[in-house]
């Protein structure tokens, strides 16, 4: 590339050392003044590739949801248009400038949204089995999440490109690996949901279902069931979401009802849930603690904390560690095997923290897909 100009320069009496000097000075100026532009260009390329990957994931999850509704759900008419409308449906969170009573408002909005999703799927499928309807709900939620992730990333990509904002692009480029990882986990969840396989998040319900097997079950809240069992002289009020549907139930409402409406005076509330592990922690590690072991938007956690505080009942937590991918895809052997250890820990906590004749509330928190009771 530089040979011809080099020969030309030598012809007019400029030697090779001067040529190298000119080259290095030129290189210095380009990198000094255009470095940000070059990096922006590389970031744009990088984000563009990630964005394409997200688009493929988004389209795949949408197609999987439509295929499931048609082939398994036996939708009477083509659900494509309805699904596309569903993907762009928004949930507007309540205003938080006056935080008093905010949890109740969030609960109201979220419950309205959940009811709408179920009604929408009911309209699409007509009469379907509860398991199929719940799986369809979950598949549509995955497709909606991936659609939203793609839209947000595309927004910042185009904004950065339009305004030539180096910092916007660089931040997005740095976040891309984590965004792709989360999107990939969501897409992987589709396979487990379609087949009705228990997911890692269902370890809490798997553990408490051991107490519930063969006992009479009753509904205590929406999609939530309870059974009364006995363990070493203690009366256990065991609750989980209604399986094997892909439900998470309303454990907050259920615990509140058990304490406030049924008049039970528990000596302890023990909650078992899956918890996201930190990098370096092993899958299936068990952690014990105090407090309400429940994730989500915070409404259920608030209700449980409020009911427990009012009744002065200690809250104990047993957590089974796993990654996000493991929590939303088919349960791994390490997690299933940790269930035995967690069950022993649960029994020990009940023995240590309560005495014979006490009432204890035991809640298995998580998605109950493929886990009945």
């Amino acid at each position, binding site marked *: 590339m530089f040979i011809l100009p080099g020969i030309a320069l030598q012809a007019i009496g400029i030697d090779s050392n001067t040529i190298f000097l000119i080259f290095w000075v030129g290189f210095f100026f380009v990198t000094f003044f255009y470095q940000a532009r070059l990096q922006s260009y*590389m970031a744009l390329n*990088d*984000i563009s*590739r*990630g964005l394409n*990957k997200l688009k493929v994931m988004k389209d795949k999850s949408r197609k999987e949801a439509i295929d499931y509704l048609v082939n398994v759900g036996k939708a009477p008419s083509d659900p494509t248009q309805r699904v596309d409308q569903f993907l762009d449906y928004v949930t507007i969170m309540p205003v938080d400038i006056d935080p008093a009573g905010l949890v109740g408002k969030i609960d109201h909005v979220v419950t309205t949204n959940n009811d709408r999703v179920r009604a929408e799927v009911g309209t699409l499928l007509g009469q379907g089995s509860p398991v199929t309807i719940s799986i369809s709900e979950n598949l549509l939620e995955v497709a909606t999440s991936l659609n939203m992730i793609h839209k947000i990333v595309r927004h910042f990509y185009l904004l950065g490109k339009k305004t030539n904002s180096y910092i916007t692009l660089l931040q997005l*480029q*740095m976040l*891309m*690996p984590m965004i*792709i*990882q989360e999107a*990939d986990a969501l897409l992987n969840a589709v396979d487990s949901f379609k*087949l*009705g*396989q*228990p997911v890692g998040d269902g370890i809490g319900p*798997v553990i408490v*279902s051991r107490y519930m*097997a063969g006992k009479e079950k009753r509904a205590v809240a929406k999609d939530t069931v309870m059974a009364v069992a006995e363990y070493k002289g203690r009366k256990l009020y065991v609750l989980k979401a209604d*399986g*094997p549907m892909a439900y998470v139930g309303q454990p907050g409402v259920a615990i509140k009802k058990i304490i406030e409406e049924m008049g039970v005076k528990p000596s302890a509330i023990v909650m078992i849930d899956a918890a996201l592990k930190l990098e370096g922690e092993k899958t299936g590690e068990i952690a014990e603690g105090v407090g309400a072991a429940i994730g989500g938007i915070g409404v259920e956690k608030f209700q449980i904390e409020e009911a427990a505080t009012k009744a002065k009942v200690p809250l104990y937590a047993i957590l089974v560690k796993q990654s996000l991918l493991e929590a939303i895809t*088919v*349960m*791994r*052997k390490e*997690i*299933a095997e940790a*269930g035995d250890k967690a069950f022993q820990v649960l029994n020990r906590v009940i023995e240590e923290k309560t005495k014979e004749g006490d009432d204890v509330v035991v809640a298995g928190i998580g998605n109950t897909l*493929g*886990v*009945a*009771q």
Partner: protein
Amino acid sequence: MMSSVPGADKKSKLLVYTIEECPACGQKTKRAFTVGDYVTKDGAKCAKCSNQTRVSLVYAEGAKSS
């Protein structure tokens, strides 16, 4: 410059199993998962004591390379 977008993942193939456990003698049987299996579902008769088994676990593990 290295790309920050992860490439195609090298995912290990997972095989899903259903564990049927006999509530009477504790005998556990491992078989391949079939659609419709769920935890607490009634399984086959126990090979050891002929009691009704129950699905106690459904889990995935990596395929062993042969």
